[in-house]
């Protein structure tokens, strides 16, 4: 079963993994630019924190739970079989274990990055108001209970895959026989419409409800503080998404190329679709709309990137852009504070993309004469993902609410979560704006004996201070 190593495929998977990893900081910028300047750091830290926690968890038990050798009822794989990647990297002879044409360790790299970004995506729903510690704990638990199982079910040969034991096989039967038997109509999730986007989108919805609205939601202005960051973030996402989608071909081949072109076609169409909707509805096409449209298109094409024609992708993307542009306004009417529209973008476009394959799929789509069977299967996996994510997230979120609490106190939320959770300010333009005048007040570590002549604690003498610098010394009198 160990194939020969194909260095071209390996190179492509290595770079794809790197590109997908870059998506999470890209998301941090995309989200960070959208919040107010006093909570941008916390917003970005949710993404970085997810990287830290999920990166570790994935190495320890994540890969094993997703792609380990023993499936538990098609729901998840045994987390201990490949714990710490033991046995996943080299075999007893010391040779690298292969996954198809490239080493398994490269697959670990690639898959790990998907787990990270899925968790990070959720954070947009609960901007500006949650404890960083609760978020970190949530990241570790949620990825274990919601992400790894779904990855196993869809991609690891579990219940929602095209395997002969899967649900699709039970509905429409199998083709082939024996070990080669697969579902006659296999569900299609090329790069993560269900596992990543529906999963994160539903989790965002649940968290927004459990955590509750920001102070002043729908009343106080919370416009984006840095739209160029949002655009740069969207661009890094787009770039990384080539690794996400074209990398999901798991080979440097024509399918990867098709996925690349489809990804771009859908994204371009979605961007214009969103802008057109804004132009008609609000009078102006906005840069936030362009960036959002880019993401909506990327999400929608994710499950479909290998299954559509480029022209089909244009249609899928264009619809996604318009659909999400309408959906993001819904939260104000329904009254839940999905702050950065994880639901409106990821859940909506994830559902549309997953189901849209049943309509637009080049071979099996309804509009392409493929009948309704693919459509039925696609709806089935979409609903299963909604259900799984909804239930698991609800349980985890409520438990954490009871045990640790989600919200920072309202004074802290008002004053700005960056200052309260991280004791930092994102920007210092070197002026007084925002009342910022700062002074060095000593070094870290309360253990410094107070008699210690740390230079910083020597009060400012007559020595000329630098021009322009607003400084002061925290003297004893101030304490």
């Amino acid at each position, binding site marked *: 079963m160990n194939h020969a190593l194909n260095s071209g495929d390996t190179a492509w998977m290595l770079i794809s993994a790197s590109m997908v990893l870059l998506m999470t900081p890209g998301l941090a910028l995309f989200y960070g630019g959208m919040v107010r300047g006093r909570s941008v750091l916390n917003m970005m830290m949710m993404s970085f924190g997810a990287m830290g926690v999920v990166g570790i968890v994935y190495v320890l038990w994540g890969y094993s739970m997703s792609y380990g050798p023993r499936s538990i009822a098609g729901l998840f794989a045994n987390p201990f079989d490949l714990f710490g990647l033991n046995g996943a990297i080299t075999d007893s002879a010391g040779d690298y274990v292969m996954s198809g044409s490239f080493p398994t360790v490269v697959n670990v790299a690639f898959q790990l990055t998907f787990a990270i970004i899925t968790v990070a995506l959720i954070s947009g729903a609960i901007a500006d108001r949650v404890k960083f510690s609760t978020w970190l704990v949530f990241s570790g638990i949620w990825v274990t209970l919601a992400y790894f199982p779904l990855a196993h079910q869809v991609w690891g040969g579990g219940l929602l895959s095209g395997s002969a034991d899967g649900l699709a096989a039970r509905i429409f039967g199998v083709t082939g026989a024996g070990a080669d038997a697969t579902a006659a109509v296999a569900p299609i999730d090329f790069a993560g419409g269900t596992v990543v986007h529906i999963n994160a989108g539903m989790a965002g919805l649940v968290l927004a409800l459990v955590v509750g609205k920001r102070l002043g939601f729908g009343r106080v202005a919370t416009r984006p503080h840095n739209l160029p960051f949002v655009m740069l973030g969207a661009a890094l996402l787009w770039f990384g998404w080539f690794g996400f989608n074209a990398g999901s071909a798991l080979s440097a081949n024509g399918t990867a190329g098709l996925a690349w072109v489809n990804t771009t076609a859908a994204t371009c169409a979605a961007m214009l679709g969103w802008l057109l909707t804004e132009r008609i509805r609000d009078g102006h096409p906005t840069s936030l709309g362009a960036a959002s449209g880019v993401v909506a298109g990327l999400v929608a094409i994710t499950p479909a990137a290998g299954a559509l024609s480029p022209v089909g992708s244009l249609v899928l993307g264009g619809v996604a852009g318009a659909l999400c542009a309408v959906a993001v306004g819904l939260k104000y009417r329904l009254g839940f504070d999905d702050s950065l529209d994880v639901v409106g973008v990821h859940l909506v476009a994830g559902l549309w993309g997953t189901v849209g394959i049943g309509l637009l799929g080049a071979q099996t789509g309804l509009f392409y004469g493929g009948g309704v069977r693919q459509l039925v299967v696609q709806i089935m996996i979409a609903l299963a993902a909604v259900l799984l994510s909804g239930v698991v997230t609800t349980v985890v979120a409520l438990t954490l609410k009871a045990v640790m609490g989600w919200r920072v106190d309202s004074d802290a939320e008002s004053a700005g979560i960056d200052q309260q959770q991280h004791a930092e300010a994102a920007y210092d333009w070197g002026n007084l704006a925002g009342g910022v005048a*700062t002074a060095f007040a000593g070094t870290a570590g309360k253990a410094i004996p107070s008699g210690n002549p740390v230079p910083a604690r020597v009060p400012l003498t007559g020595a000329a201070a630098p021009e322009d610098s607003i400084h002061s010394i925290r003297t004893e009198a101030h304490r």
Partner: protein
Amino acid sequence: MKLITAIIKPHRLEDVKEALEAFGVSGMTVSEASGYGRQRGHSEVYRGAEYTVEFVPKVRLEVIVDSIDATDVMEVILKAAQTGRIGDGKIWAVPVDDVIRVRTGEHGPAAL
């Protein structure tokens, strides 16, 4: 005429503006300021170095009013700006010799 200057907490600006409008004041000028007083700042830590931020963000609001309205306007601002917590700020009044509306060149109360 009088120039009323109020140093208030930023989040009270909206209420103060509305209260003034309701009272009949039709214009005002606001700007950013940083206050130093009983209300202390906070500290921040970067790579183990601690910095104190001693000045607190405030908003300065200036409104020119007819002398006979001065006390009332101060009262209006006081009510709308007050939270009862340290750092609520100050309001003061200064005599004004004359005021001109730039657009029309009108002088005195007519310029407001």
